[in-house]
């Protein structure tokens, strides 16, 4: 159940497929994923760039704990989290979470849990660059439930 913090642009589909290739075909009937993408507008302002800071060491540890918590609560075959850090451009993927399970209920609920837990517990911080050149730290996430 790997977690990965990446500094360059990444292709969520390629990451998911590469990891899925290590699973036994036919064991999982359900794959649910979520991709978070950088938007060009946030809180009414045009956003032209983003810097994502993290806490090396703690971030990876926390992501692993989140997956372990999900595996306690749902019957999952495997799970993957990839999160971008550093400088991003609009339209680029920020995060990928994927869960493989036998049945869909577990995959749906676990993948949503991964995202909510990640957004409240995994140390990442977004700093936006606006169209006028100003920068600002994002102060809070939008609610997920």
């Amino acid at each position, binding site marked *: 159940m790997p977690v990965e913090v990446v500094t360059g642009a990444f292709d969520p589909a390629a990451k998911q497929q590469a990891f899925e290739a290590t699973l036994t075909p036919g064991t999982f009937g359900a794959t649910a994923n979520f991709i*978070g993408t950088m938007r060009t507008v946030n809180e009414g302002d045009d956003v032209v760039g983003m810097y*994502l*800071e*993290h*806490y090396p*060491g*703690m971030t990876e*540890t*926390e992501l692993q704990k989140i997956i372990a918590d999900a595996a306690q609560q749902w019957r999952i075959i495997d799970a993957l989290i990839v*999160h971008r850090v550093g400088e991003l451009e609009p339209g680029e993927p*920020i*995060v990928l979470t994927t869960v493989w399970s036998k049945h869909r209920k577990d995959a749906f609920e676990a993948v949503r849990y991964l*995202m909510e837990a*990640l*957004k*409240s*517990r*995994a*140390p*990442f*911080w*977004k*700093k936006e660059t606006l169209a006028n050149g100003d920068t600002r*730290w*994002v*102060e*809070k*996430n939008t609610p997920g439930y």
Partner: protein
Amino acid sequence: MPIQVKFFASLKEDLPNARQQVEASEAATVEEVWYAATQLKDIPAHIVCSVNHSHEQIHQAVKDGDEVAFFPPITGG
């Protein structure tokens, strides 16, 4: 080996002169690490803290060799 202190994101920008090491003799809890490192008189309510890469409350005890971090609310994902 002293307590290592880290600040992230806006906190790191807002507290450029904060100390990155304090001695356990100066600070027995996370909260006291904050006061010793920042020389501030209070600790904002929204501050999140960790000890050795694990989320902790501000009253958590600390000892020499620990890594204590302070950061604003998380905004990843």
